[in-house]
């Protein structure tokens, strides 16, 4: 039995007492009346309190449920924030690492730049020293140049004097060359004269030998074979045709080998006689003659041997 039941019980009891009092000339004690009033009051009060309590309990239950839902939502949000925060922390750590790496690279670059700066300062000092030494060298060279200019002037004067002397020497040289040419010409004339005299002497000796051996003058008349003196051996240099149709041959020996005009020679090849050659023109070291093939069909070729006689 709750408060409501107690209230109902109290009312029923009160009504019964009232009925008893009405039925039996209303003999209810004042305490009973007071207790009934208080009971009614307390009943109403209890009802109000109970209603309020029930309402608040219901509201509290709702509040608890809402707070749980809110807490769950907040926890989810916290997790989400933590996740994003973790990502932010990760990004921050990556950024810090990149910054650290960049810092290390910059420090390395700084160290290298410092060393390069020290090197450049040393190079600068060396350049300044070399510039100072170059300046000193320039001053020294300037003094040397002045000295050289003075020397050059004196040398120029000397060269001029030497040129003048050279001109005079050239003139004298030209005079001497002219004189030398004149002497050379005279010498050649004398040489030719000597050669002519030698040839005449040789001709005289040959004529004497021929006279002794019974041979007549060779420059005129018939061709002859010189059987005096050593055998002359020559080679055919060139074969050519004369305007008259005869075959002419040039050999490599002449008057130096005691050959004479109209002298008859024999052309030999491989030890066999081919044709005869009668000299028409004799020079000192070469001769030209007419080939007589004696009716044979032969061909005279360069390098064929030519003999003055067989024996």
């Amino acid at each position: 039995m709750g408060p409501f039941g107690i209230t109902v019980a109290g009312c029923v009891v009160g009504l019964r007492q009232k009925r008893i009092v009405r039925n039996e000339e209303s003999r209810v004690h004042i305490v009973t009346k007071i207790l009934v009033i208080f009971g009614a009051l307390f009943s109403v009060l209890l009802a109000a309190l109970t209603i309020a309590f029930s309402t608040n309990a219901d509201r509290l239950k709702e509040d608890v449920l809402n707070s749980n839902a809110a807490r769950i939502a907040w926890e989810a949000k916290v997790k989400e924030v933590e996740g994003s925060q973790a990502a932010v922390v990760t990004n921050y750590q990556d950024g810090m690492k990149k910054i650290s790496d960049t810092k290390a690279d910059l420090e390395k670059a700084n160290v290298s730049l410092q060393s390069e700066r020290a090197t450049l300062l040393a190079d600068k000092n060396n350049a300044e020293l070399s510039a100072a030494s170059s300046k000193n060298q320039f001053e020294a060279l300037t003094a040397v140049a002045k000295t050289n200019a003075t020397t050059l002037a004196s040398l120029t004067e000397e060269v001029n004097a030497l040129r003048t002397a050279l001109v005079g020497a050239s003139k004298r040289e030209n005079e001497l060359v002219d004189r030398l040419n004149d002497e050379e010409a005279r010498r050649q004339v004398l040489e030719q004269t000597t050669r002519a005299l030698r040839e005449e002497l040789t001709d005289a000796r040959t004529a004497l030998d021929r006279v002794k051996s019974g041979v007549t003058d060779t420059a005129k008349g018939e061709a002859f074979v010189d059987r005096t003196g050593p055998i002359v051996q020559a080679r055919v240099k060139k074969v050519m045709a004369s305007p008259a149709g005869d075959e002419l041959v040039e050999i490599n020996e002449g008057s130096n080998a005691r050959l004479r005009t109209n002298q008859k020679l024999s052309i030999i090849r491989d030890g066999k006689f081919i044709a005869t050659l009668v000299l028409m023109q004799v020079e000192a070291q070469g001769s030209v003659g007419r080939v007589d093939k004696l009716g044979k069909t032969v061909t005279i070729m360069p390098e064929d041997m030519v003999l003055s006689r067989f024996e």
Partner: protein
Amino acid sequence: MSQLGMNLPGGAKRRPQMTVYTGMLFIAVVALAAACAMVFLAGQKIGPGGDAFGSHAAAKKSGSYEALKLGK
């Protein structure tokens, strides 16, 4: 009780007397008082601002959550 009622000389009126129902009423009133006191105390604990007769506002269907103020 009327059969057992005392005939008082001189025709004096009978005073009302306390019966067992009075005692039961007394117990009921005491119980009601105790219940009121207990409910009042509990209501103070959960009532808004310690008011046992007050009631909290209904929770909003949407929006931010606001905690209830319990007790004094």
